[in-house]
């Protein structure tokens, strides 16, 4: 009657796949470090990195100071930032999707990125950065958390969050916030062009401090969420069943949403709005490895890093001028969003 082989999902083993992705990421990073106006060969890149890490100049023999400076001071922060932002956004998307039980959730579609951007713009314009470096990310987090709460409040009904309500509320809140950002830009006057480029999502001219901040947030946030991955899995059964299995759903939900918002907010505060990474990556990973968050979260971290670094490197290498990376991801991710939306409407996902 039932052939069990028909739809038995063939899922690759996560351990080897993770190792493979990490090696791929390392290779791509090394390649990206050498690529650009000043071309540096892979072995030279490796030697520069080794000499910088070990402090021994022997390894860097025969490398010009220009090459060293370009790799370490110009490209390394950008490469690290691209990886960290991609990873942070992908994990944040996976967590939002899991907690809200909604495949269309993502920092961008939920208005969280817009909230973070609004908070960051506000801090930038008032020059709050003078009070200390972390104030922009902190304001971004406040904006992200505030807009998430608002979206959840708007979308909540007796039973939980319906997909349509959530996405609609996200769009409403994001459009109000983007009007707010528009007003800030108008108020900013001569600083507006800086804000504008930042808002479109750019990885150019990032400092090492920026890159390390996002990197630490991405890894730390992923670890926090990973520690709650089993509870996140159980939440797919709905709140009643999860509670009956001993999960403190409201606390778990709060912790996970805060961690995901923090990851998204810090990413936005450094690079501006980069949309859809958090939508595409968890989806692709889930379709290959299944929905278990203990696998989904770490693989999404690496896959998100790969995607954004790949996109950034490709636009840097192939296109004549600098295109904001946010434009690229939106061009890639928008059609993908439409595809999921359509598939969900015809019932493929059973939501």
């Amino acid at each position, binding site marked *: 009657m039932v052939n069990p082989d028909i739809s038995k999902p063939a899922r690759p083993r996560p351990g080897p796949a993770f190792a493979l992705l990490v090696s791929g990421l390392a290779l791509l990073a090394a390649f990206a470090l050498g690529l650009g106006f000043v071309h540096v060969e892979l072995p030279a890149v490796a030697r520069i990195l080794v000499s910088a890490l070990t402090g021994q100049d022997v390894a860097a023999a025969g490398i010009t100071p220009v090459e060293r400076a370009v790799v370490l001071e110009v490209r390394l922060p950008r490469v690290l930032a691209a990886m960290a932002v991609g990873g942070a956004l992908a994990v944040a998307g996976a967590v939002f999707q899991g907690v809200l039980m909604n495949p269309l959730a993502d920092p961008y579609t939920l208005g969280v990125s817009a909230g973070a951007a609004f908070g960051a713009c506000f801090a930038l314009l008032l020059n709050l950065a003078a009070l200390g470096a972390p104030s922009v990310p902190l304001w971004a987090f406040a904006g992200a958390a505030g807009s998430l709460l608002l979206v959840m409040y708007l979308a909540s009904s007796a039973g939980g969050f319906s997909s349509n309500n959530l996405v609609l509320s996200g769009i409403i809140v994001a459009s109000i916030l983007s009007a707010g950002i528009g007003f800030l830009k108008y108020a900013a006057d001569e600083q507006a062009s800086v804000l504008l480029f930042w808002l479109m999502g750019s990885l150019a001219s990032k400092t090492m401090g920026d890159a390390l901040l996002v990197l630490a947030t991405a890894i730390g946030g992923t670890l926090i969420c990973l520690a709650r991955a089993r509870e996140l*899995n159980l939440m*797919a*059964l*709905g709140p009643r069943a999860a509670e009956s299995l*001993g999960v403190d759903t409201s606390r778990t939900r709060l912790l996970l949403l805060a961690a995901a918002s923090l990851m998204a907010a810090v990413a936005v505060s450094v690079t501006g709005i980069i949309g859809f990474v958090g939508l595409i990556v968890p989806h692709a990973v889930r379709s290959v490895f299944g929905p278990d968050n203990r696998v989904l979260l770490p693989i999404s971290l690496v896959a998100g890093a790969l995607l954004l670094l790949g996109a950034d490197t490709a636009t840097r290498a192939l296109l004549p001028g600098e295109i904001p990376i946010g434009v690229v991801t939106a061009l890639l991710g928008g059609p993908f969003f439409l595809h999921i939306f359509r598939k969900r409407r015809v019932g493929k996902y*059973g939501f």
Partner: protein
Amino acid sequence: MDFELAGACFSHGPKRIFTNLSLGFAPGMFHAVLGPNGCGKTTLLDILCGHRKLQQGSLRAQGRDIGAWRRKELAKAISLVPQDYQVHFPYTAREVVAMGRYPHLPRFSPPAARDEAKIEEALSVCRLEDFAERLVTELSGGEKQRVAFARALAQDAPAMLLDEPCSSLDVRHSLLVLGIAAKRVREQGGTVVAVLHDVNLAARFADTLVFLKEGSVVASGPTRETLREDILETVFDTKARVAEEPALGVPQVVFL
């Protein structure tokens, strides 16, 4: 596992669900809760499993106030099959059933042989072996509901709360699922509290019946004493006839 509600009051916002409800569920029995829509059956189960807190009155499980139980202890003692059996991500049926072992597993440790055995047993008694590796999102409603029941079985708790566990099941599978629950009660001395819509299924499997209407108990007690035409008519506002069914050896109901 027994439950003792005393003077229980519960409201949903302005809507009163229970006022001064007192009710006991003795251990080692199959209790069926019956009543018209909106009489508070689901809320009663929510309260019994600790999902909702009473505003007044007390609930004791095994003589201990429900608030004094730790979450994981409660999850080891009471399992719940909620009315909503949807799973929101494409897990396999086996993965969903394995989630039932969560309260028994220390953090970060994989299922042990004992857990695997419970998972296999739950899949096999619910006749889900052929579905075990299939994605639960692609199963039919009835199959999903059986997976939810198997998940609660794997939880292996002395008390099982079932919220309309047969709402999407055909006759054969309704008998299968309630039969499994009744067998657990008989053989392992467990306690089952099941909200059922089908009075005849209740009469066939339950040791005691609780009739609720508008948040109050109309009647409760052993099935043979409470399955009466006058009680049924009061509760459901429909004329009923109760007659012994010789093939089953239990009374059955026809609504007229």
